[in-house]
């Protein structure tokens, strides 16, 4: 089982870096586990997300999100949840995760078989500049913990299938 952990975001756009920072923190805290999966960081992957997912059996994406919830809320979205975010906006230059995955499922049956979940961290400030807002920074450990649980679940499954 090929497992991808993908931190997504823009490091120069405030809380949009939350996904990147969460995955980096997890990598520091769990270095041995990090070596057992494929780890990638992507700033504005857009349609390039489909290339990153190629050949993967499971993927956990970590990204900042806009939502009605309070800043720092952590959302754990399944594949079905992601599907419900699909089309509509289609910004010219910023294909979002949901739209890109929807497109990928139409174009590639193998992507439809890849188990994808998203850990979304609700952000507050997305202005130009570095640094996360306090509310987002404080929940990074919790996001890491959720990410670690998700990865270990996939790893157990991988180990079980190779016995």
């Amino acid at each position, binding site marked *: 089982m090929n497992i991808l952990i993908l931190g997504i975001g823009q490091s120069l756009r405030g809380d949009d870096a939350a996904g990147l920072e969460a995955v980096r923190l997890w990598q520091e805290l769990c270095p041995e586990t990090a070596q057992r999966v494929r780890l990638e960081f992507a700033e504005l992957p857009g349609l*390039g997300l489909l290339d990153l997912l190629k050949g993967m059996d499971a993927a956990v994406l970590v990204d900042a999100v806009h939502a009605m919830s309070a800043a720092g809320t952590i959302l754990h979205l399944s594949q079905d949840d992601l599907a419900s975010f699909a089309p509509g906006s289609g*910004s010219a230059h910023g294909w979002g995760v949901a739209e890109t995955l929807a497109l990928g499922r139409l174009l590639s049956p193998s992507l439809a078989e890849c188990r994808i979940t998203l850990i979304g961290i609700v952000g507050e400030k997305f202005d130009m500049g570095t640094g996360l807002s306090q509310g987002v920074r404080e929940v990074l450990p919790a996001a890491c913990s959720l990410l670690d649980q998700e990865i270990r679940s996939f790893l157990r499954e991988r180990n079980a299938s190779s016995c």
Partner: protein
Amino acid sequence: MKTIEVPALARVEGEGGLYIGLKDDQVVEIRLDIYEPPRFFEGFLVGRFLQEVPDITARICGICPVAYQMSSVTALEKALDVEVSPQVYTLRRLMYCGEYIESHALHIYLLQAPDLLGQASALDLAAIAPDVVKNALRMKKIGNEVLKAIGGRSVHPVNACVGGFYRWPDATPLRALLPELEWGLEAAKETVRWSLTLPYPDLKIDYEFVALHHADEYGVIKGDVWSSKGSKISVADYETHYIEEHVKHSNALHGHTVDGGTYLVGPLARLNLNHAQLLPAAQKALKDTKLKLPLKNPYKSLIARAVELVHFYEEAIQMIKVYQPDGPAHLDLKLKAGEGAGASEAPRGLLYHRYKIDENGLIKFVKIIPPTAQNLPRIEADLFALAPKLVKMEQEQATLTAEHLVRSYDPCISCATHFLKLKVEEIRD
């Protein structure tokens, strides 16, 4: 008073509102209100060292960062009175090929084609024509790979600097792209043939076209500023002919000629002014279309982009085949106070930069005029031509029709979410 609200203008950038004022059922006023907040690049670049400028200005756009880098280095090199080597120049053009390929493939297939084919989005197009979209993504990816091979990554690539490049890219990864580039060239030729089958709305505008022109190559980085109305000026004289000004209803500046006229930059302008400089495969692709130039239908900018795709694939192949880096990748700059203007043709049109620097290489003044700002008044004027039809439509149809026209320009107001509100108001005395 009659009001029509039109929701989000999708597949373009920036926040925009469209206002139509009617009097006695005649359109008397039309405004494209840009709500996109100002981004202040021209402000915060002041005081920065000149070598920071290419990578900072590249952040203005995620799809055309190379354009910002090339316009900025060209202008700053003029300020320093330096000229890069032919090898550096060739590599800059190759980098631009990557940007044109990925930008044009995206716009043709995923942004404008769905409109022409009656599909709500690229997703809907993928559902009925998956192979078309798959090929589009493959074509786009090749452009991204060229950027990655030269600049380390496809979004906001690095490596370009004032005076050249920080390092010569390795030849091996570039040559490894040749098979895909050869495939892309054939796919681009097929794109031109396919583009002729699309149902374009009938609209013909007598534009003033403006683009960089060079006698020996398709104008992208070098050349003078040519107008279809006859003026031919150096880039240094650009601001004596073309100005950018504030308008009350827009956070984006509007470009005009100094006598107050509108003009068009972009693929239609380039093709109409520079078709003689296309490389052979693109020349043939254009000739085979049997189209009579100049093209004056904004929707047919798609065809112009398709022809340019052929050109840039061919150019990329040629350049990679002869790429043999030799000598220093960049000049050893001697700092001095100065001022310089530079322009290059972004996929969306002419992008102008001007800088003043002090004796330590610190930026004292910046002026950046993007192609979309130059096109905004022209987009308004074209919407004015379309408005009588819009006001007779139901709101949803009016939205789509306005969006289709605006999308044909491939505007790049910023990389932000977008929102179009259409308001039609009966003006009473």
